[in-house]
């Protein structure tokens, strides 16, 4: 930096998280043009029904059944993805290959290959598998396990490779065997990270299982979509409240376990016995196995069925000319526009809303409830709701995905703000600055970089996710893809999936670079 010389004014770090919220200005100008007169009364009925959910036994029984299927699917998919991810993650770590085989290129190769399953959204996996092996519970489980496994593998591989290697070298120099040295040096530092991350993945798995249900793969999601489409709002809300309760319980349980197992012990007053944590973990892992078997049994999941491939519909001659004639530029542009809009809404609104709600405790509770709803609500359902009053299109899709991710980012921001050093903000508030400015100056300054780095990662997820709002039409590759799927135009399908994969990989590379720049100190 060239210190004192004249430079263009550049906003202070504290303002960075708020900049994406500027997208709200054009949005508020554009939205009125999109509103069609139709469904305000429907939307009103929907909102009112929140206070009057249905308690009919028939409804509740079917919802609970759906919930059981969704949670079971999430659990199985999550467990399989962890197993897959851990194995592949270790196999894609350079250190591991270097230590065991003396060369690191296989790690890079595996890493490259894993990018492909990762780039395909779980919904696409689900719909593709559905075509191949028919409707069975295993479809949803596999659809979650495959992309999540590849994601976990990437995180595990990255984590292993970012650990300091001096201890490993020391042990190797002292004559320890390669596998023993790897396990001793990399296992302990990896475990807390892994625990914390796998807890987060379970929350994701529950959201994905619900989403897959919305597209007909069974469970609560299916119920939610059916009730919404038949405008049975009271029943819809029973399902939503049930899901909210489950999600909040799960989040509380995950964060409780995370604190118990993954946090350093120095914060707790009572000294825990050596190995107590390890024993607890082992017991939990052992208890998980019969649970998983029972769940698989309950879902009537039979591994044998996976081998029964159903006859694909006759594949016609590929018509590449028709594929090439698709409006590719428009499709890609719309997809990118949707991603950018949704990401800006999500990333910018979370700090903005937090700032607005800062002075009043009840307002913060309302905000937290709003965010919880956003997290739990599958974006396609939001999109369908928005269609009551908005015309289909990129903006509608972006709002739906933006709302969902706002819930995720908002919670993260709140947690980070609570965990950050309170000193500077407190000092400002005690000098009379008021709670909002204290939050802005005192906390956002420090949070801005990590928050935006996570936002960049989230933008990446949103790009993949843009397929799920394809059903509200005219949203780019997503809607074209769903169309091709329903007509099983396999040539189009292949081209579109390829386009998605390429786009996602490009986006990933971009967001990685952005994240690196954000994490560099100035």
């Amino acid at each position, binding site marked *: 930096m060239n210190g004192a010389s004249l430079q263009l004014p550049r906003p202070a770090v504290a303002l960075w998280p708020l900049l994406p919220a500027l997208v709200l200005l054009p949005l508020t100008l554009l939205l009125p043009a999109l509103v069609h007169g139709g469904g305000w009364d429907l939307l009103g009925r929907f909102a009112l029904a929140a206070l009057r959910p249905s308690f009919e036994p028939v409804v509740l029984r079917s919802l609970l059944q759906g919930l059981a299927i969704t949670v079971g699917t999430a659990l199985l998919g999550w467990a399989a993805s962890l197993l897959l991810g851990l194995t592949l993650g270790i196999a894609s770590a350079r250190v591991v290959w270097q230590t065991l085989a003396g060369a690191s290129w296989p790690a890079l190769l595996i890493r490259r290959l894993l990018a492909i399953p990762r780039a395909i959204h779980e919904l696409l996996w689900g719909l593709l598998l559905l075509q191949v092996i028919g409707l069975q519970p295993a479809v949803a489980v596999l659809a979650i396990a495959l992309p999540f496994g590849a994601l976990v593998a990437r995180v595990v591989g990255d984590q292993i490779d970012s650990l300091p290697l001096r201890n490993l070298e020391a042990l190797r120099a002292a004559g320890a065997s390669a596998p023993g040295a790897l396990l001793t040096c990399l296992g302990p530092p990896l475990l807390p990270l892994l625990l914390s991350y796998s807890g987060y993945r379970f929350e994701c798995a529950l959201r994905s299982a619900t989403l897959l249900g919305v597209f007909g793969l069974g469970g609560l999601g299916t119920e939610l979509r059916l009730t919404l489409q038949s405008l049975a709002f009271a029943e819809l809300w029973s399902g939503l409240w049930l899901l909210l309760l489950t999600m909040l319980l799960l989040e509380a349980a995950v964060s409780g376990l995370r604190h118990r197992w993954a946090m350093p012990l120095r914060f707790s007053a009572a000294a825990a016995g050596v190995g107590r944590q390890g024993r607890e973990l082992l017991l939990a892992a052992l208890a998980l196995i019969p649970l998983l078997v029972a769940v698989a049994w309950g879902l009537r999941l039979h591994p044998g069925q996976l081998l029964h491939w159903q006859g694909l519909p006759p594949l016609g001659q590929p018509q590449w000319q028709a594929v090439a004639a698709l409006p590719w530029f428009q499709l890609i542009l719309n997809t990118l526009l949707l991603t950018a809009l949704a990401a800006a809404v999500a990333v910018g609104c979370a700090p903005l809303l937090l700032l607005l709600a800062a002075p009043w405790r009840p307002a913060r509770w309302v905000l937290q409830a709003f965010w919880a709803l956003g997290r739990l609500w599958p974006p396609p359902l939001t999109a369908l709701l928005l269609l009551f009053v908005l015309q289909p299109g990129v903006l509608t899709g972006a709002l739906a995905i933006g709302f969902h991710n706002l819930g995720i980012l908002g919670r993260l921001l709140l947690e980070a703000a609570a965990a950050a050093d309170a*000193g*500077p903000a407190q000092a400002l508030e005690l*000098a*009379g600055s008021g709670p909002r*400015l204290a939050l802005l*100056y*005192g906390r956002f300054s420090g949070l801005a970089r990590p928050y935006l780095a996570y936002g960049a990662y989230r933008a990446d997820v949103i790009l993949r996710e843009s397929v799920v709002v394809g059903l509200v039409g005219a949203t780019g590759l997503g809607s074209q893809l769903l169309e091709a799927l329903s007509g099983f135009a396999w040539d189009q399908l292949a081209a579109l999936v390829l386009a998605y994969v390429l786009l996602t990989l490009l986006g990933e590379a971009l967001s990685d670079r952005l994240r690196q720049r954000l994490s560099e*100190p100035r």
Partner: protein
Amino acid sequence: MSHLLELERVTVPGRGRPRLDQVTLRLTAGERVALIGASGAGKSTLIAVANGLLNPAEGQVLWQGRPPARQGRRRRLQQSRIGTLWQDLRLVEELSVQQTLNAGRLASWGWPRALLNLLLPLETGACRELMERLDLDPALLCQPVSALSGGQRQRVALGRLLRQDPQLLLADEPLASLDPRLAADLLSLLLRQGQAPRALLLSLHRPDLLHGFDRVVGLRQGRVRFDLSVPEGGSAALAPHLEQLYAGATRP
């Protein structure tokens, strides 16, 4: 004469024994009071009660004769008249020095100016003048706080306090981590700032720096052991009191 700060039989509970035990203390305008005592005597707690960070379990705090408002505009106005130089400084590392100095004005600035301060250099003249008073190079104004040295940070924190222009200045062990020359400079700056109509309450654990204060208050185990005016000749006359204050306590 009205008091800038009054603590009436203030008690703050702690583990085992109270952190403050029935403490009564009054400060009038123009008074510069040193608060001394060993580590753990309750100096930081007393400062925290005085600036409103802690609410005492018992007793009363009055700022300019009024109890602290619960929330809102009136509380902010009250807080803006009390400035604290924190032991750990509590600077926002990511802001530039100029933004940090201007952060002292946040109580009187509205939203728009507070936002503008994050975008553009505001009130550069006043900030430059302040930097010169603090014996800092004005070129540092556009540097981030994280790039400053320890002594510079201390002075920037003081600068933020001076920008706030409070009537009651509180300082929690501001001299603890400074070399003797810096400590003397900072102390004389603070003492000058504490003249009427303002007042200064400064905690320290070095009895050799009492020169220039009007009063000295000794704390031990959460209780006020003495509250005396500092004699002209310096601290020699206080020696027996000080000995009693530190007796049996391990000096840090």
